[in-house]
């Protein structure tokens, strides 16, 4: 691709998703009953709900389904798939608005997803659901508000909620947890704000709320939470109705906040913890990806960070620069390496790291596309990433570039 900067990576194809190329934080692969590989994509914002792309031939992706949101005051930023069941998150702009919750779809026929149920998580202080994890086909782990949850600070509304979908037509809440001190009425004092921001927008930084919750079938008694300014938490969820903290780590402050993902490497007793860059022009630099020693869950120790390209080169190219989503080693048709980590870093593109020596992560490969046409940022803003079990890399631009399919020579 003209204007791309790369090392050990090749672009196989790009699809701008019918002109709605703003990719959110939901990418999941389905092997359809007829054997096709379907990539399900969430959108960053309205008007689109989700898009399904047949990526059986990664050089020739084809859109097979694209749906619309019911209105413009909401987004479905996240989705996840297990087997032929898909969960889609609905988040509204203003607390109290609807629909806010999760919708389950039967995607046996990917061209025609069939709604099975909707689990309502709206409420006077709730914006609904930002992110969901659904890897075992039984429980959805999500960042959501609740009708009966009133946060002390309006931005702290999305807590950890577990929804039992073993009967997909009748989802029920199985448990919840929030960082002590963030709910109105908590005995624990409210946490001190890391970087106080005005309340003109509820989105963005200055928040003690959940972003990602990761739970792996190999370790069903543990939930790994990225709790934005609250840092990383490991919860014992052997009793889902009563999650308990077994370990936590928070570099914020002095770092500028927004812990996003906590991914355990269960064979190695390590965590990869990512921050999310949420401000343009490196306003919140440095946003890092951390290697954390988790041999003792109750004594988490950072041991290194992933190398990033120079601030001088990328900080002011436009848009965001720094860490965000990583490929999360979920079960299914998915790469599950504990030595090679795939991440997206907004204007620093897709980057791949060798962490075989976790004290010294090394860059193996990267691909930085040129700024896509029609984007509100002058650079590509690589927002989410998925890697299938064959090592094919799928990534989305946040605003206009849509889906990029890449091959890494590693």
């Amino acid at each position, binding site marked *: 691709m003209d204007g791309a900067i790369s090392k050990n990576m090749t672009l196989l194809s790009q699809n701008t998703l019918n002109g709605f190329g703003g990719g959110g934080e939901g990418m999941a692969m389905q092997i359809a009953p007829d054997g096709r590989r379907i990539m399900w994509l969430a959108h960053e914002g309205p008007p689109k709900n989700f898009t399904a792309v047949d990526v059986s031939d990664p050089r020739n992706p084809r859109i097979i389904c694209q749906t619309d949101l019911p209105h413009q005051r909401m987004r479905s930023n996240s989705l996840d798939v297990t087997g032929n069941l898909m969960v889609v998150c609905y988040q509204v702009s203003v607390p109290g608005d609807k629909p806010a919750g999760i919708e389950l779809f039967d995607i046996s026929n990917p061209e025609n997803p069939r709604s099975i149920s909707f689990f309502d998580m709206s409420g006077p202080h709730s914006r609904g659901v930002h992110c969901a994890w659904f890897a075992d086909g039984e429980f959805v782990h999500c960042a959501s508000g609740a009708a009966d949850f009133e946060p002390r600070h309006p931005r702290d509304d999305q807590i950890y909620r577990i929804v039992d979908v073993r009967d997909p037509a009748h989802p029920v809440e199985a448990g919840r947890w929030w960082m002590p001190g963030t709910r109105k009425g908590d005995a624990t004092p409210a946490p001190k704000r890391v970087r106080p921001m005005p309340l003109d927008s509820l989105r963005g930084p200055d928040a003690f709320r959940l972003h990602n919750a990761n739970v792996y079938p190999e370790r069903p008694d543990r939930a790994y939470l990225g709790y934005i300014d609250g840092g990383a938490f490991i919860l014992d969820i052997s009793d889902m109705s009563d999650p308990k903290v077994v370990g936590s780590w928070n570099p914020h402050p002095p770092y500028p906040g927004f812990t996003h993902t906590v991914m355990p490497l*269960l064979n190695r007793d390590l965590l990869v913890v990512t921050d999310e860059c949420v401000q343009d022009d490196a306003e919140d630099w440095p946003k890092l990806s951390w290697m954390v020693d988790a041999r003792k869950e109750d004594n988490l120790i950072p041991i290194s960070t992933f190398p990033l390209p120079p601030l001088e080169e990328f900080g002011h190219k436009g848009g965001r620069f720094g860490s965000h989503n990583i490929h999360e080693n979920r079960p299914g048709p998915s790469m599950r390496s504990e030595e090679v980590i795939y991440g997206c870093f907004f204007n620093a593109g897709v980057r791949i790291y060798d962490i075989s020596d976790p004290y010294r992560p090394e860059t193996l490969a990267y691909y930085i596309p040129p700024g896509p046409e029609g984007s509100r940022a002058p650079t590509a803003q690589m927002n989410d990433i998925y890697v299938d079990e064959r090592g094919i890399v799928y990534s989305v631009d946040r605003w206009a570039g849509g889906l990029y399919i890449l091959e890494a020579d*590693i």
Partner: protein
Amino acid sequence: MAVAAPAMFVTFGKVSSPLTALEREGAACAAVAGPDAPGFLGRQVALIDQGMPAIRLNTPGWLSAPPSLVAALTHRADLRLLCRDRLQGLTPPFAARASRWIERYLLAAAKAAAPPQDTGDITEAGDRYFATLLPLVAAHLTCVDRKDGVLLSTRADQGFVSLDLVLWDGMKLTGLLFGGTAARTPRQNQTLAKLAKRLGNRLHLQELESPADEDAAIGTLIAQQEKAPQPWFGPYRAEGFRGPLPIEPAERKCHAFAE
């Protein structure tokens, strides 16, 4: 025409740069190893060549313990604990699954052998425990060709292949890999396939994806205890017994392998 199989250099344990470890110790390994002593086992590097006997817990070379410590071990059971301790000490800090596997493997080894007894004899039935194959953890393997019986190089000219654990039974190297093919990049899988092709039946790769796979591997490998020649010995042998015992060549009889 049968071609002599390449020798295998294996670095193991807390090694952050296999190449450096090999550069530092490879030549010494090759110098020690020869027709009369095929192969070499050190504390970070092993040279596994045709004719090398199985590498067991009681194979000299890997176990680090000063004489004063050994003298202080008054019970046979302490020797088992010493082996376990040293093996765990070899394990890199972030090889958790391998570490847990070794723990279970040694428990199975103890179960298979008679309980340790302090009979005062040079050997005893419980020493079968030390005939357990020694797992070399966090292994990096590279092949070295030879010409006219001489190793061509002690450097890893062809790169290393990483294996979570390897065990040498005198005939073949068993390589254990956690996580299946999806845990490796396409190139890592290609390199592994190339190595497997090159070594033929001298290499047995086993993917351990589930706890059941791990248990099965433990069962198969512990059964190798029985193949060890008797009498069984502990991890320390008197000077005169350090070399292969007269009975051992039958076990380590190796053939030239066709490529």
